[in-house]
């Protein structure tokens, strides 16, 4: 329970402290939500299943098409980014960001928070 609170605290602060971050969720590799700070109109369970599935699919593409280990999956839409990144064996991190977000900075921030989350998960 303490671990969940720590994870939740990191995710909540990450979303609240970055203007360009619109939501985030940490989910299990089998698609269950662990902690989240998502916009209220998004279904948490469906989002968790989608995030885990798309990361898995991306990893398969990386393997089948000889692209090597996947660093992140990025879905770039007209309204913004959805970024999925593995947090070790135990979790997948989803981050939603505004279109205005600077990509390099965004990826750097995501890498940083993923590292923090992994430290708690391990």
């Amino acid at each position: 329970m303490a671990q969940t609170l720590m994870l939740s605290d990191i995710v909540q602060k990450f979303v609240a402290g970055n203007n360009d971050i619109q939501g985030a969720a940490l989910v299990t590799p089998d698609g269950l939500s662990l902690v989240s700070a998502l916009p209220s109109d998004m279904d948490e369970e469906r989002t968790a299943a989608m995030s885990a599935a798309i990361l898995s699919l991306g990893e398969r593409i990386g393997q089948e098409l000889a692209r090597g280990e996947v660093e992140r999956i990025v879905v770039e839409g007209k309204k913004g980014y959805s970024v999925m990144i593995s947090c070790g064996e135990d979790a997948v991190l989803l981050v939603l960001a505004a279109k205005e977000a600077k990509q390099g900075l965004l990826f750097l921030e995501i890498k940083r928070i993923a590292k923090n989350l992994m430290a708690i998960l391990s």
Partner: protein
Amino acid sequence: MEREKLGGFISIVCFKGVITGMEDALGEKATAIALTSAGRTRGKNLVTELGLAGANPSLEDLASKLDFALGENGTRLCKVDKIVDEGDKIKVYTHETVCSAGEVQGSTRKCTYSMGAVCGAIETIQGKRYRPKHTESVLRGSNHDVFEMTLIG
């Protein structure tokens, strides 16, 4: 639209064709996530339709209700034999699951849709959240397909 001649059931062969086809295109892991999620939604909707959401009956009664909904007299997804409370987790004992049907002994196949449906149904009935795992299989020496569900909220 109802099927006048063919009714509401399809062959397991066709259902398994959907699963293996998805696994071929998407990979086993992504398929398992999608099917477990689909099963959860199905289980949730089923017990809601039956008016059982939030009913929170005894585990014996719960097993009986699930067996009625999913078993021989229901949608024939699987037989639910018993549910055992083990503190922070519960174990659901099933057999004749659609996921294991048609598989050879020793097959590594794991239940996904059946497990998700059972999990989604129990979560909706009890108002709790579980992380399900298929721990024993009729394909690997057990008398049951056992779904171990760990409480997560």
